[in-house]
């Protein structure tokens, strides 16, 4: 009995330690950035800012180039997510529910972009875009981002569609349900977890995308991430301004994440990625 008690308290200690670790890993960096964004001078060795100000946030609101980066980011993310889902759904359905010759080849081809470093494809596609006059345009950025998130979206949707039992559809059909009723009452409800996972992933993938956007879009089309990179890599790094951009960048992503993590199922996302 004594042993059970000690192993239980050890387990409690371990889980507590893990929680503290995770909180520290997340809380510390976010906290420091939040403090920087409202700091009015913060020089070593002081552990807290010397004063507080809303100046950097106001400056952001009045900076048209940053505002246009926000608008660009939101528009691009929205269009990319929508377009990716529309393009991925039929293909995922075919891969999940049909068997055909060369299916293996098609599956490997869908997987291939995941095992080729993204920058190689980005630079190659960038070259094509330069010839087609798509470089430095919104459309170019949207296309290259769709290309980036499409393979994973197809994977997750296909593994979700695969999990829908065929018996259920057959049973509904024998019981007199027509095609539309099957879609409405069986296919759509059972696909929702996978569609949510895929949609969320393309949303995040597009919003946080940097390399491809930077290669195809910058310096004409800027999103928040490429703007932040310019801020960080330039000679005059202004930490408070960069902090404001960081926090703006985090806001919508966290919002979506919080909203969907309540209804999202981990296993759906893991199933899509967990097979190679």
């Amino acid at each position, binding site marked *: 009995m004594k042993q059970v008690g000690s192993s239980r308290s050890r387990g409690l200690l371990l889980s507590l330690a893990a*929680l503290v670790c995770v909180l520290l890993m997340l809380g*510390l960096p976010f906290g420091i950035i939040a403090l920087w964004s409202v700091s009015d001078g913060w020089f070593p060795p002081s552990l807290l800012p010397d004063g507080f100000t809303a100046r950097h946030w106001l400056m952001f609101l009045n900076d048209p180039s940053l505002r246009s980066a926000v608008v660009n980011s939101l528009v691009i993310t929205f269009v990319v997510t929508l377009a990716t889902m529309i*393009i991925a759904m039929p293909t995922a359905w075919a891969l999940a529910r049909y068997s055909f010759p060369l299916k293996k080849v098609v599956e490997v081809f869908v997987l291939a972009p995941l095992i080729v470093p993204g920058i190689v494809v980005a630079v190659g596609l960038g070259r094509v875009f330069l010839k087609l006059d798509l470089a430095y345009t919104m459309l170019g950025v949207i296309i290259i981002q769709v290309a980036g998130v499409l393979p994973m979206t197809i994977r997750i949707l296909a593994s979700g569609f695969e999990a829908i039992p065929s018996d259920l559809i057959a049973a509904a059909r024998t019981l007199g349900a027509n095609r539309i009723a099957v879609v409405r009452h069986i296919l759509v409800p059972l696909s929702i977890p996978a569609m949510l996972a895929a949609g969320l992933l393309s949303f995040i993938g597009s919003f946080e995308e940097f390399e491809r956007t930077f290669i195809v879009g910058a310096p004409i089309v800027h999103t928040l991430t490429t703007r932040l990179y310019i801020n960080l890599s330039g000679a005059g790094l202004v930490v408070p301004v960069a*902090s404001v951009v*960081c926090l703006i960048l985090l806001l919508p992503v966290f919002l979506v994440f919080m909203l969907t993590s309540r209804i999202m199922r981990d296993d759906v996302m893991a199933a899509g990625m967990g097979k190679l």
Partner: protein
Amino acid sequence: MRAVHLLLLLLPGIGVLLATFGLPLFWAVLGAFGLGADGAGFTLTPLTDIFAEPKYRKGLMMSLYYAIAPTTLTLFVAIPLALMLQKSFIGRKLLNGLYKLPLAVPAIVAAFMVLTLFEQGGFIDRLLMLGGWNIGKIVRDPLGIGVILATLWKDVPFMTLIIAGAFGAIPSDTVHAARSLGATRLRAFWAVQLPLAMPGITAATLLCFVKSLGNFAAPSLLGPAYPLPLSILMYDSYRDGDWMAIYAMGTVLILAAFVVLAAYYMLTAAAFGTGKAASSR
């Protein structure tokens, strides 16, 4: 009729991938041999240059280092964390929700966090100053510790999510059976859980590795100025319009990825005898 149906279903996804992935890649590999629109006839010089010129050779080494080091470290954090999430304990729900947050955080923001915390004069440095210590050079240091930290922070949740899914899919009866047949906890883990979760672990490892191999933001913001990884050299050549160099670097990077993948499969096959099962699934 059915075939037409099928083709129409496959067309959008596969067509887009052909145009945005297959074509540029084909072009790049052709270009590396001096063929295609940008080339001037078959040649091997650009490719051999990569191994001959120190800038490129060291760049390749650096790319591999930035990919292998954080991926290996991540494995050692992610597997215990994923195992822990299988158990029920107080605060599990909170932990399970929280650890995934970095998944949604852009890589550049992660790099910026490392800057504000670990640079000389950063927050951690200031904390250490209280005790009279100095943090030393972690950002833009020759070992690229800052790059590894930023990559780690992003990769641990990603790997943990996939590996936890793989552990979760193992029927709990199998582990119970091993335990009641006298296997120690460690042996049950090593002989039952780990091999069964191997496809998931493999997928997670490979995805992290390939992602880091083309990593651009973290090395350019946090890494040493020399040697630069191939990803940054490729970007520089892209801005200069030096297509031959780009195609050669890209081709070498793809080859490097394949060599490491092959080595990984051979290693895991030797260790668990499951490499084949993992690759065929």
